[in-house]
């Protein structure tokens, strides 16, 4: 089994203010998805969510606001899963709830040092 990083991306202006009730509604599919991965014993690291604020540091002391580089897409969070191959990891990522809100998942194999 190898480890794969799942990078969750979505629209940059997605993260607006939510009520507690809405947050609960958003968190349920995520908890079910993570719980499902954990039940298969393939969740290596639940990872974290990332705040939408960020800065990009470039050469020559250039620092820009915004966590995104070019496109209006933001990394919302990441997890690490275990899978036999990149194809299998991608198949697993099809269940991610970010797809239901127009986001996407980037799947990358982690190469051990």
């Amino acid at each position, binding site marked *: 089994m190898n480890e794969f990083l799942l990078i969750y991306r979505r629209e940059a202006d997605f993260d607006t203010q939510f009520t507690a009730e809405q947050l609960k509604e958003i968190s*349920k599919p995520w*908890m*079910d998805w*993570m*719980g*499902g991965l*954990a*039940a*298969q*014993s393939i*969740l290596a690291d*639940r990872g974290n969510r990332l705040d939408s604020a960020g800065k990009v540091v470039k050469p020559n002391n250039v620092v820009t606001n915004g966590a995104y580089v070019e496109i209006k897409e933001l990394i919302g969070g990441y997890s690490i899963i275990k899978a036999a191959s990149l194809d299998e990891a991608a198949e697993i990522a099809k269940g991610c709830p970010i797809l239901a809100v127009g986001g996407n998942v980037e799947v990358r194999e982690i190469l051990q040092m």
Partner: protein
Amino acid sequence: MQNNKLISNLFRTEHRKVTAVLARVFGFEHIQIAEDIVSDTFLLATEKWGQNKLPDNPTAWLYTVAKNKAKDHLKRNTIFTQKVSAAIMAESSLSEEVEIDLSEKNINDSQLQMMFAICQPVIPAEAQIGLALRILCGFGIDEIADAFLSNKETINKRLLRAKEKLRQHKVKIEFPDTHEINKRLETVLLTLYLLFNEGYYSVSSNTNLRKDLCLEAMRLTYLLIENKATDLPVVNALFSLMCFHASRFEARIDKNGEMILYDEQDSCLWNDELIVKGTNYLIRASRGDQVTRYHLEAAIAYWHTIKTDSAEKWENVLQLYNKLLILEYSPMAALNRTYALAKAGGKEKAIIEAEKLTQLTGNHLYHSLLGYLYSGVANEKALQHLQTALKLAKSKGEKNRIAKNIKKLNTLKK
């Protein structure tokens, strides 16, 4: 006859107290001497009390005899006088003789310190539980063998090896430093948790013994709660979990010693007092923001004390299992999560998730679960899974239960 019963009860409760106190005096270096003194004391009691009348205060009698034997030994043994006693005397500022303190406070302190001394990652969990049963709970080797479905020789060897290991690692019988408590407590709690589970889920047919294991685990956990330094949320969570589980003692095992599944239990037999107790300790466990597996398992057990099925109940149980699994995977949690999903979101959803649990295909409980999920959805498939479960199941009780479900499904199909 009555004397025998009294002696065996006293043996359990007093044996562990005297052992803990003496073991602290002698240290793991010479724990065998402590154990021998205790054995001699009880042997003498059995002989004397068998022939004559019981002394007015049997406990005091035991303490006096044990104390004298210990003191005699300390005086007699030259190695001891030179090595160990010198150190003890220096510490205790008693120049004349060593004090063997069998007061309630010192007994409790000694037991707590012993608990920390035994629960060490350097010895395997099984051996920790064995030593806890022997030294902290006063169980006989034959009883420990019965609980582990093993034999006396194996258990004796296991305990000897473990004690040797503790000696090699120079484990001291003392209370850990304040900053170390949390880390050390982790191992202690895991051992108590496993000790409880050994009784609760054991396949041993000795129902009374199994219950005793659970009660001992609860007693030791409570000892930690009574001590200020270890009265932490996580300890309260574990105790709460044990109370909730223990509340179903009478309901979960039938007259023949066979398990009764949760769904089929007579909830009138649930112990309300223990449920209330579990709830109170769960509230005490909620101080602070630490959420451990014991918190989550206690919360799951809490929801199971509510007999009425509701979407709310099972949705809560599902989310708790999600959190538990994310924290730490276990096959049982994976299966129970899928069951909760079926109850909260319907069997179709649960089947999709269950089919993904390919790591469990060798587990009879996995096939029992699929048998349940496919019942009424695709009965032929349900039957296949139940038959696989029947083949994989080991205990007679489980085989009977699966066979019963197969029969039920067959009648439905007709």
